[in-house]
């Protein structure tokens, strides 16, 4: 009798446990469906509508928003080009600087903690604060340009000239976030076994050879993941641009994410903004899939 009851008892316990599992994940999953998955689906629906934020009028629009995007909106190609330029400059700059800093800071020397603390500090500082300071330092006759004048260089009016404005946004953004990639690289570097380095230096390899032949290949999977995360992150830089240049001068720093916000909450064209958001969705999705595929391949290679 006991023997017959035990499995049934265990089964009902397992069922009870599963019920608790659902209960535990319920708040998160309900929130996820309401505020993340639902809205992602809704963006697709919105993108086929004319939606005026001010009047509240909603009309079906078919593919009109996408037609506007591809045919009549002269700003859209500019915005895409800006986004591309932003990412193409920001990612390598960020990664190289992060790698360099991580490489320097993993030396076991005094004061490294101080430098790590300093390089990481902008990461936890609010973007508004960081940008307020840099906006001042990048004014025509202030800050940076006073330093440059000291060494005999006439600096440009950084935030008022299209190319320099883009460069300013990129560089100040790199300074703001490079600390995050730096610490990720640092922990990856610390996990690399030292024996290889030592063996190589016994064999007469110099510092550069060790770095390029031994350290870098072992870091490759981390670099790859960090790179894709930085690409995706670079597509989401909104507040920095809004606060620093407001997309200007003459749309020179208006990237896709900024343009979405601008169309939705300044032009009040929610339908068109949703169509732009659909484009962003597919760009991010592509980046994610590329990362996933590359990651699989790398992990396969490792084994």
């Amino acid at each position, binding site marked *: 009798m006991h023997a017959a009851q035990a499995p049934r008892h265990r089964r009902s316990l397992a069922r009870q446990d599963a019920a608790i599992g659902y209960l535990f994940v319920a708040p*998160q999953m309900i929130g996820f469906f309401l505020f993340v*998955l639902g809205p992602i689906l809704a963006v697709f629906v919105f993108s086929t509508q004319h939606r005026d934020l001010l009047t509240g009028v909603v009309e079906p629009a078919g593919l009109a928003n996408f037609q506007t995007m591809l045919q009549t909106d002269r700003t859209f190609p500019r915005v895409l080009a800006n986004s591309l330029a932003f990412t193409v400059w920001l990612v390598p700059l960020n990664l190289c600087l992060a790698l360099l800093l991580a490489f320097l800071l993993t030396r076991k020397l005094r004061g490294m903690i101080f430098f790590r603390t300093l390089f*990481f500090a902008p990461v*936890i500082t609010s973007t*508004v604060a960081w940008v307020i300071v840099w906006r001042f*330092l990048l004014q025509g006759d202030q800050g940076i340009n*006073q330093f440059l004048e000291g060494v005999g260089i006439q600096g440009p009016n950084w935030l008022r000239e299209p190319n320099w404005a883009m460069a300013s946004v990129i560089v100040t953004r790199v*300074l703001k976030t490079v600390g995050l990639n730096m610490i990720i690289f640092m922990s990856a570097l610390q996990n690399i076994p030292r024996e290889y380095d030592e063996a190589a230096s016994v064999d007469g390899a110099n510092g550069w050879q060790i770095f390029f032949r031994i350290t870098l290949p072992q870091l490759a999977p981390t670099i790859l993941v960090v790179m894709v995360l930085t690409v995706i992150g670079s597509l989401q830089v909104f507040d920095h641009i809004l606060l620093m240049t407001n997309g200007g001068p003459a749309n020179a720093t208006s990237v896709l994410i900024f343009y979405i916000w601008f169309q939705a909450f300044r032009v009040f064209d929610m339908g068109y903004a949703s169509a732009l958001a659909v484009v962003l969705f597919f760009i*991010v999705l592509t980046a994610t899939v590329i990362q996933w595929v590359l990651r699989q391949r790398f992990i396969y290679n490792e084994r």
Partner: protein
Amino acid sequence: MNANMISSTHLREERSLMGQISLFIAKHKNKLLLYLLLSALSIPFLFPFWWMFTSAFKPANDIFAYPLTLLPQTWRLENFAEVFAFQPFARHYFNSLYIAVLVTIGTLIVSSLSGYAFARIRFPGSNLLFLLLLSALMMPTEVTIIPNFTFMQALGLIDTHIPLIILPILGANGVVGTFLMRQYFLGIPIDLEEAGFLDGMTRWGVFWRIALPIARPALVAVTILTFLYSWNSFLEPLVFINNNDLYTLPLSLRSITDEYGQSLWNIQLAATVLTVLPVLLIYAVAQRQVVESFALSGTKG
């Protein structure tokens, strides 16, 4: 002979002193170069903070002084008083603080519950649900903010703090928390929990009395990440809040301008210092935990 000897000893000594210096330089050349390079690299990180903190004490005109001054000529403490006179800054401060606290508490509850369930409890569909959650990490908040705005508008929640509290708990930030909690729970030896069950504890008891106390480091990480996320968040307040009384600090800082939209630099910087200071102080005290929290969240992405 004697003199010769002295001079040669002298010479030898001198040579050895010079030698010591050059030896020191040769021996530490790499180290010195390293410190030099790091110091040069730290200027664009250090200077903005230096300028922010010192200029917050300068009179408006001194901020524009030519050449730029590294320290205030006169320390003007009134800047800080004017921050509170210019707009309801104390209220903005309180708004930011209480929202960040609520978001943090909410995220801790939601993330530890679902992180634990995904790590330890077997239930049909758990893998699928977890994968779905992960996909949320990749989607920018900006993609979902338009429908969320419409949604909140329909519920009459524009110009309330409710969206600023709910969205981070249940959106991508909360998912990061769940992910961290799950990773940590997976690392706890299962024997500990089985011993709890043998002692007649329920699932809740095992979670609450055994697993959660061990997961303290993960809870600390989620607390740090979430608090900072909320404290520094800009897009959500910008979109959902119009009423000045309901502003959070980032909006408040941005609105310290004159009637032409030009920054009132000294007041704005004093307000910026007041905003950044608590975060930097906590960072100074607990920098290891802060850095490790970010390292965890970064590598898990």
